[in-house]
């Protein structure tokens, strides 16, 4: 945490010490995290409003201008089919962000209930679920992804599903751990004493309190999903062309790496930047939400 000397001036407006207010206060102080967050927001906007930013379409081929280097006409050059790289990068952001975020929906959708049930119910239920998790762990996820993709076919939704299906395990474990620790705390005991039902307690007390760590984990697993998409596209089992994704762009660029290296450079940089932003944001959130850091 930054230990910048602050004078009496801003002492007057000390932060409100609720978890969220306090977290937001501390997050605002973390420049890197804010930078990351801002980049992500800007990128999302750029992706959403891509058509207003560039007049090129992501599938619009210009066979007279193939593999051109950056120019005024094509800011980042063109690819093997004369498509504007900048445009594809923008539209590709849609894919990558979509993969990054919607995968989390599936991950949380599967991991949270399983973890919550295991953590709350405990005993044999917990045992069975956690053994299941163990099996998932020792399964080579790449095999699952490839096979699932082969069964479901090549679309972006199938991609969300395939990636999500193999990466919910961490969340499940986390939620379970969280709930187990919180379960033992007094106010939950109190709630139970007051005759609160299991699910009610889970939803009213346990989940809200384990929300912080979950948010952090999710933030960190967004880049992981984007990673996965890129890697899969590199193996040629990514999204359905001509829809661009940064992964497919890297893959295409890799094919021409010696002749026009910038084709791989730009999407690679884009991915790296997005990753870094998410990592910074995640760090910031962790520091902000981690109760241990509160004084």
């Amino acid at each position, binding site marked *: 945490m930054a230990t910048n000397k602050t004078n009496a001036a801003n002492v007057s407006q000390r932060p409100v010490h609720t978890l969220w207010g306090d977290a937001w206060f501390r997050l605002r102080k973390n420049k890197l995290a804010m930078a990351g967050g801002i980049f992500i927001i800007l990128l999302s906007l750029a992706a959403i409003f891509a058509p207003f930013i560039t007049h090129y379409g992501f*599938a619009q*081929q210009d*066979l007279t201008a*193939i*593999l051109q280097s950056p120019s005024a006409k094509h800011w980042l050059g063109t690819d*093997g*089919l*004369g498509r504007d790289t900048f445009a594809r990068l923008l539209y590709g952001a849609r894919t990558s962000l979509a993969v990054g975020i919607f995968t989390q929906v599936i991950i949380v959708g599967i991991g949270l209930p399983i973890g919550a049930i295991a953590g709350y119910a405990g005993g044999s239920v917990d045992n069975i679920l956690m053994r299941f998790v163990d099996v998932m762990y020792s399964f080579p996820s790449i095999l699952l992804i*490839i096979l699932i*993709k*082969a069964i479901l*076919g*090549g679309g972006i939704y199938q991609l969300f599903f395939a990636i999500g299906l193999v990466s919910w395990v961490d969340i499940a474990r986390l939620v379970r751990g969280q709930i187990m620790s919180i379960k033992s705390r007094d106010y939950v005991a109190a709630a139970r004493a007051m005759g609160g039902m299991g699910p009610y307690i889970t939803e009213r007390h346990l989940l809200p309190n384990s929300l912080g760590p979950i948010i952090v984990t999710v933030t960190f697993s967004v880049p992981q999903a984007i990673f996965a998409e890129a890697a899969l596209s590199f193996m*040629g*089992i990514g999204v*359905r*062309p*001509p829809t661009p994704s940064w992964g497919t762009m890297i*893959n*295409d660029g*890799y*094919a*021409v*790496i*010696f*002749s026009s290296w910038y084709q791989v450079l730009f999407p690679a940089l884009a991915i790296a930047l997005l990753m870094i932003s998410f990592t910074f944001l995640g760090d910031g959130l962790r520091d902000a939400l981690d109760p241990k850091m509160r004084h």
Partner: protein
Amino acid sequence: MKGKTVFLSLLAIVLAMVLILAPACSSKTTTSASTPQVLRINLGGEPDTIDPNQAAWAPDLTLIGQCFEGLLSFKTDGTLTPDIATVIPSTSNGGISSDGLTITFHLKTNVTWSDGTPVTANDFVYSIVREVSPVLACPYASFYFNIVGAQAYYSSGNDTPDQQAALAAAVGVSAPDNYTLVIKLNSPQETILDCMALWAVYPEKASVINQYGNSWTDPPNYIGDGPYILTTWTHQTELVLKPNPNYWGTKPKLAEIDMMEITDANAALAAYLNNQLDIVGVPIGDIKTYMNDSSYANQRLLVNQLGTFALQFNVDQAPFNNVLVRQAFACAIDRNAFVSDVLDGVGKVTTSWIPPGMPGYDANAGSQYAFNVTKAKQLLAQAGYSDVSKLPAITYTYANDTNDTTIAQFLQGQLKTNLGINITLNPEESNTFQSNVNAGNFQFAWFGWLADYPDPDDWLLSEFTTGGGVNQTHYSNPSFDTLAKTAETDLDNTTRLSDWAQAQTMMLADVPLAPIYNSETFALVKPWVKGLDASDIDYSIPGDRFYTLVSIASH
């Protein structure tokens, strides 16, 4: 103070790395300084098998071709020449019986295995029977189904061993004496001679195979009769070949051939640029650079291939059950743009299915459906689709490797711009793709064919006859079938070839597929590689049929 020590340790790591790589660079320079007679090529992966009977994969053949020789072989012009056989059997020299059902080969008597023992007719009998055995289920067995009893034996997979043994004995190959081989056919077949020149029936030494089983292909068990022997096989890494001391023919110049197994095209190119390879195929994306960069002028090699790539339609599925639609699509693809932009000029525009350099090639075949947008629109209109939005949904299925993906997107663009048709792309993992296409689960797809042997029947018979072995388009035309039938059993080459030519024209008129281009190989060859004889009959690497002629100049 702790921080410092940490950084020292980091520094140490970096230094360690530098130390590791220092010798590396020096060693590199030294290797390229001296000139051992070593040829370094890239197979592009681990061979599936190097057992001639079972091989099917072009790179595997590159290796087998060095270690084995058969009865006959192809010259660069695609004509046959005797190898172990003394002469090419023909009706005139009595090698082929008048009814065309019996083929007799006479063998050279001075041919030996790499272990010094003589190669006899029995080795061929063994190999041919083994080729069609149900136990191995060899992929090329169907090429020999015309041999008496072959198919029966091959299909006896679920029978008892005794039954199989009986069927094996009944296969129509025999060796009256050590140097005579007699083959009995069900029906006359001119191209059986081409088939006898294929790797699939190279002689194999029964004793080693029986002794070592599967591992007979590991050196030193890998006994062959070719100019080279396989000395080391580091799996997934490289194969090393040395001259065969007991080779009967002219001794090769090379002291060693290193066959790398680099799977990634770019990695291979990098290896070439880094002087770790002498020959490399240029990945499609990099072709332009090396085509135009003058500093590579003395390294470029552009070789014609006996291959045609085409758009194939499933004639059972709407809208391609309508011949007019197929014709329209054939006219809608700008082949010139394709070759120049997608292939960067490596390849030749074609409308003919049978590629140039093949007997029975006809440059004008299918030319009526060359690129012509207006005609394409007319055809669509005739088909009743003047409003393309009336077309049923169309999906193009393809294997998801980089090149096919580019092609798919190009075709999508063409149909959009030229006919205003929106098609969906359906990338499938190559294995899924293959099986779906075999099963006819596709509307239209990419289809490539590379010659097994230079004869039209390899291109038309099983591909387009009704119920043909690899008829993926489900094309069915009675008059085509009759023509094919006659040509198949015709021993007179002139009439045979004219029949096939006619058959092709007939087929192309119905457009079960629309030929787009004939493939070529664009490779870089280090200037110090001398005597390379590259041609359209290469297996997978330029000149790989004639490495005996190659030598390495000092550099």
